[in-house]
């Protein structure tokens, strides 16, 4: 990975400073409260500074939105990453000791090029790009996140899948010693698995993210590498990827295995198709005040122009 010292001030650093100020307020508030042990979660959720490596040569993208970014703190302290626990603050609190590197990624299945690669080797052939995407969670909340990633389409083409390859299946790290959430085997059927059709994987919006805010991907967000498909619900974005397989049959994702009636393979953001237990018509944008209204959810999370054609003729109510 290309890592260099920060050269000049970028927008992300302004947010960082903001975090520092918030942190200071927080410490002050803590001392007012006189040792009420409420401060723990947030303080420890802040990623240690020495891990915040800068990514070099990050290009811009036409797919980026100009909506207000969520703060670095929001993005790293409110996560669904059950490998580190099922609470939203758990990944931030329980991943502090997790050192993702060295990391290996295996590419196998119906492709001309396969093998196991070191993380650096795996991402080296491609350009890094900043992609500011909306992220809509199936739980009806959303964020705007400045990812740094590489085009998944470029990666797929690099390995030259054969005509037999219809889907790309992803598998995440399974390491209960380092990921304490995996010690609870009832939580999910570990390792976490996800999949895309080849057409979805080669859509220009799909990326494998290796960073946020111009810095290496923090642990609670799926370090060192995770999938980002902004037109789909967030759970499709598998974190900590160790295997990418070109397969013929539609892979079954972890959430499909857990609750097949509630979570499907496609998981496209769709305000018209409700989750069996709650409405998907609107969402709460994280980072707003408690008095901020919910916002209407957009079809394909507002990325219809780029992806709607992938689902021509597909019944999206049945194929949720």
């Amino acid at each position, binding site marked *: 990975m290309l890592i260099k010292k920060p050269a000049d001030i970028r927008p992300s650093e302004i947010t960082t400073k903001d975090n520092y100020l918030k942190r200071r307020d927080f410490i002050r*508030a803590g001392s007012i409260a006189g040792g009420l042990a409420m401060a723990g979660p947030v303080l420890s959720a802040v990623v240690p500074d020495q891990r915040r490596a800068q990514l070099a040569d990050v290009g811009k993208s036409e797919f980026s939105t100009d909506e207000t970014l969520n703060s670095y*703190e929001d993005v790293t302290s409110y996560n669904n990453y059950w490998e580190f626990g099922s609470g939203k603050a758990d990944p931030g609190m329980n991943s502090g000791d997790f050192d993702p590197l060295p990391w290996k990624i295996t590419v196998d299945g119906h492709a001309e090029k396969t093998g196991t690669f070191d993380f650096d080797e795996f991402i080296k052939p491609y350009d890094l790009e900043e992609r500011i995407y909306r992220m809509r969670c199936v739980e009806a909340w959303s964020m705007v996140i400045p990812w740094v990633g590489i085009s998944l389409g470029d990666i797929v083409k690099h390995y030259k899948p054969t005509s037999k390859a219809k889907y790309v299946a992803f598998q995440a790290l399974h390491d209960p010693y380092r990921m304490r959430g995996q010690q609870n085997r009832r939580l999910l059927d570990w390792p976490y698995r996800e999949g895309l059709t080849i057409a979805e994987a080669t859509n220009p919006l799909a990326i494998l993210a290796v960073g946020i805010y111009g810095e290496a991907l923090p642990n609670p967000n799926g370090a060192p590498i995770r999938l980002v498909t902004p037109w789909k619900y967030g759970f499709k974005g598998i974190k900590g990827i160790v295997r990418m397989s070109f397969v013929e049959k539609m892979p079954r994702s972890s959430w499909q295995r857990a609750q097949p009636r509630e979570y499907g393979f496609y998981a496209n953001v769709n305000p018209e198709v409700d989750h069996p*237990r709650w*409405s998907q018509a609107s969402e*709460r944008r994280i980072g707003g005040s408690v008095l901020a209204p919910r916002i209407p959810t957009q079809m394909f999370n507002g990325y219809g122009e780029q992806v709607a054609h992938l689902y021509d003729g597909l019944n999206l109510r049945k194929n949720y």
Partner: protein
Amino acid sequence: MDTIRQIRFIWKPTIFLLCLVPAGLVITDLFEITGTLGANPVEAMLDRFGTWAIRFIMLTLAVTPLRKLTGWNWLARFRRMFGLFTFFYVLTHFLVWLMLDRGLYISGLAEVLPAVLEDLTERTFITLGFTALVLLTAMAVTSTAAMRRRMGRRWQKLHYSAYAVGMLGVWHYWWQVKKGPDDAIYYAAIFAVLIGLRVYWYLQKRKKKSRPTPRATVTP
């Protein structure tokens, strides 16, 4: 001071204030005095009021079994207070949902009413929670000693709904999570024990009643 006055003037006010602490901490966390509600404060408020509501209904339902097991009859003097705090936490949970999450306070009735009605009627877990609130409201307004006297036997019947509230609470909790049951399973277990004890005692009592008691053969 005798025990009854001690309970009335010392213990009751103390417990009352303690029961308010969780609500107070939500407010002080909201204004970042004692801590923070995190990235999604509305959800955090919902979760915390809701969790305390379920804790309080369990506490209320635990009073009678605890009394029987320990012989601490003074516990009964706190039962109504715990019941009213259950109502208080369910009500705050509901108001945060209605006013902030659904946005009645922010966007006005006309804007949010369709979504609220859809939720109340079509989302099973919300219907369950709302039913519990209706039952608790009925119990809260009839909780005074005067009402109890006036209603006679009907009062007891109405207040048996506390069991229904416990069940509805667990069910509501169980169904709202992404992949159940999560922590809801602990509350389900506690509820099962509290109901199980009552069923056991009821059956014991019936057994005793049905057995004719031979008076003459009582030995010293």
